[in-house]
């Protein structure tokens, strides 16, 4: 650790590298237009929201594989409540967030009460939540098309205003609302980790659970809260996803948990727990966000894009690790 760069600096270096690639391969100047960056932020926001919750979980040396499925459940539920059942936006939002919170807390409760591995518990929750999303939606996308009671065809209803609201631009069209939601979630997550007692507990529980317990840290309660927060973030991301897709798709969000984990890890937060933080995760979100944007600007095919992303994740993590050994 001595004499080498600090974690945030390393992470920033990786981001700067990606950014520099964008400056060079700018796709006929597209990279120099703000619209490109606004769009990048829009695309990275949903993943970024998941990554915020994931950061808290990973700090406790845990993992939450369920966030992609919880996102789908939230998207389906939100669409169902607002489009089909005509609930008002505030009540629907509250209900959906409550469900996310509850599923997350359930994972945390199982992990802390029975000492189960976070990987296993959240893997189970991932399967369960996906099933629940399909159950709630009847396996169909929940959209403006509502089947007639006699099943003879579809009626088309208006999309509730909240959908357009979330998927619109503000600040003179420079920034999308989902990005503002992401910023708010990031700010709250930062406050929890860096400014609240529960955040300190999360770091201690991740760095050394036995030492934390012997120092009077309520390790179990901390884990429940942390996974509940991750579930809440997934529900928020689900509402944003529904607004962007203008429907609730029970198949959506598959694999998002892995992107979120990648963002956290690229930032430099250690999977071993106790080390890292939200600022690092933001750097990770931007790194992956820009990477995707640059690759798509330059019309790199999906196959190549996936392979490159994989290689870059490994490279970034090796980069982070050399700091710790050096």
């Amino acid at each position, binding site marked *: *650790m*001595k004499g080498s760069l600090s974690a945030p600096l390393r992470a920033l270096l990786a981001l700067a590298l990606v950014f520099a690639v964008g400056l060079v391969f700018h796709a006929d100047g597209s990279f120099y237009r703000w619209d490109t960056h606004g769009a990048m932020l829009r695309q990275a926001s949903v993943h970024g929201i998941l990554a915020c919750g994931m950061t808290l979980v990973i700090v406790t040396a845990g993992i939450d594989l369920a966030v992609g499925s919880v996102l789908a459940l939230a998207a389906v539920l939100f669409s169902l409540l607002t489009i089909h059942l005509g609930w008002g936006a505030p009540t629907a939002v509250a209900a959906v967030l409550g469900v996310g919170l509850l599923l997350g807390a359930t994972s945390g409760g199982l992990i802390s009460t029975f000492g189960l591995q976070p990987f296993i518990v959240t893997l189970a929750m991932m399967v369960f939540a996906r099933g629940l999303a399909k159950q709630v939606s009847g396996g169909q996308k929940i959209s403006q098309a509502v089947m007639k009671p006699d099943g003879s065809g579809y009626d088309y209803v208006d999309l509730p205003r909240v959908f357009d609201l979330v998927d619109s631009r503000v600040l003179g069209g420079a920034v999308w609302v989902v990005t503002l939601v992401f910023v708010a979630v990031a700010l709250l997550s930062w406050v929890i980790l860096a*400014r*609240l*007692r*529960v*955040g*300190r*507990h999360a*770091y*201690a529980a991740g*760095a*050394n659970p*036995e*030492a*934390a*317990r*012997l*120092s*009077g*840290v*309520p390790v179990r309660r901390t884990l429940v809260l942390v996974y509940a927060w991750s579930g809440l973030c997934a529900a928020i991301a689900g509402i944003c996803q529904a607004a962007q897709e203008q429907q609730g798709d029970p198949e959506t969000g598959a694999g998002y948990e892995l992107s979120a984990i990648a963002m956290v890890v690229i930032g430099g937060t*250690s999977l071993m727990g*106790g*080390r890292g933080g939200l600022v690092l995760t933001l750097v990770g979100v931007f790194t992956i966000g820009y990477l995707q944007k640059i690759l798509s600007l330059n019309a790199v095919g999906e196959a190549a894009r996936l392979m490159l992303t994989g290689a870059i994740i490994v490279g970034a993590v090796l980069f982070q690790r050399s700091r710790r050994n050096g």
Partner: protein
Amino acid sequence: MGSGTPLLALRGIRKRFGRLEVLHGIDLDLRAGEVLVLAGGNGAGKTTLVKILAGAYDDWEGEIVLAGTPVHPRRPHEAAALGIACIHQELALVGPLNAADNLFLGRERSRRFLGVDDRAQADAASGWLERLGVEVDVRLPVERLPVAVQQSIEIARALSMDARVLVMDEPTSALTEMETRHLFERIDQLKREGRAVLFISHKMEEIYRIADRIAVLRDGKLVGTRLAPELAQGELVEWMAGQAVTEHARAVAGGEVPCLSVENLSVTDPARPDRPLVRDVSFEVRRGEVLGLAGLAGSGASEVLGAVFGRLPRRSGRVLVDGEPVPSGRPAASLRRGLAFLASDRKAEGLTLARSVVENVTLASLPRFSPGGWLRPRREERAVRELVRELDIQASSLRAPVSTLSGGNQQKALLARLWLTEPKVLLLDEPTRGVDVVAKARIHRLIDEWSRAGRAVALTSSELPELLALSDRVLVLHRGEVHAALERHEASAERVIAAALGGAA
């Protein structure tokens, strides 16, 4: 009993860890067909010597001569190939594998293209175990077998590799009396076959039951070797204790009121509830008093402190602080009652290594530094800065990870953590383990200051002179029971060691 050239001869064995030399040139002979018991207090160097034989280190000095040939095991498999087998306190079997698989681990019998020949292995394994008089289904996972049988499997493994020298490091610590007797019968058989056994034990009665000769280590030096019948128990204790350390640092303190009362405390191993660790221990510590809990490894002294605080759940018994009962197994509640606990393994159970000095020091008193759940970093830093100065903790920065501190400074940071909880009772399990002499002296002074400030202190130390110097009273534990309670003027090193070995104090 064999004579003439020794089967195994150690010449001038030295070993250092960093700048600290822990073995200062050991000469030791082991003859074919004998059991040599290696005795010595904690920290005498027994385990280091055993590890050298086991090939665990590659940077020792000196010479090992095996049957006339100089050898130099630098890796465990090299030692095994030479015919030196070590059976450690912690068994080295792979739990989910069966006995046969464990016996042939790393040198599986296989048929060409067909993988491991399970039948041949099972037959061979049964054969070896039968020679030891053990009947067991070799197809069962070893983790489901009793510890004694697991140990036999290790011995069978050693025999199947044609080990001529068997080193057993406290093999009876987890065995019942009956199992111990069986083990000793097996050792007799090994002797008759002309093998040599180096046996480490902390139990007086056992030492004389099994030993042909006894060698005693103290502070990394060989005190002497003698035929067992010619070494009286008293002399053995003297050899282990060395010069009686009479320099007592403190004047006797102590008020009248018991601050900590422990009544009929019993503790069992959480992993094996049938195995008692502490049996019916009662004691009191008054304000301003320092109570030392003495005992050799496995005596239960450390577990007493752990169970009083709640690191371990109590099987039975009560703990009272100023007359208020303390619930079992709940550190958070114990802290609120005014107990503070220093775990013996600071890396495993004390420090959050990745976190800063500040965070480590305030961890146990966070509510005070986060009213309403909001952290007050400046208030934390002020409190920590003061303690850092007072305890002379050397840190490049208070925000630096605590892992960057030296062992002594880490330990002082943990003591600062305890002090910040404003405790009435301090439970210190090995407060100076692995710290340099300067930090050690500061910690001694600190314990003295705390007791003078009216705190009750209970502590353990594997360094007897230190324990005697710090304590107003000494409780000696042997196999989880209080074997002697000695006032300061009665507590000589000889008496404590004799009691710790299970003899009369």
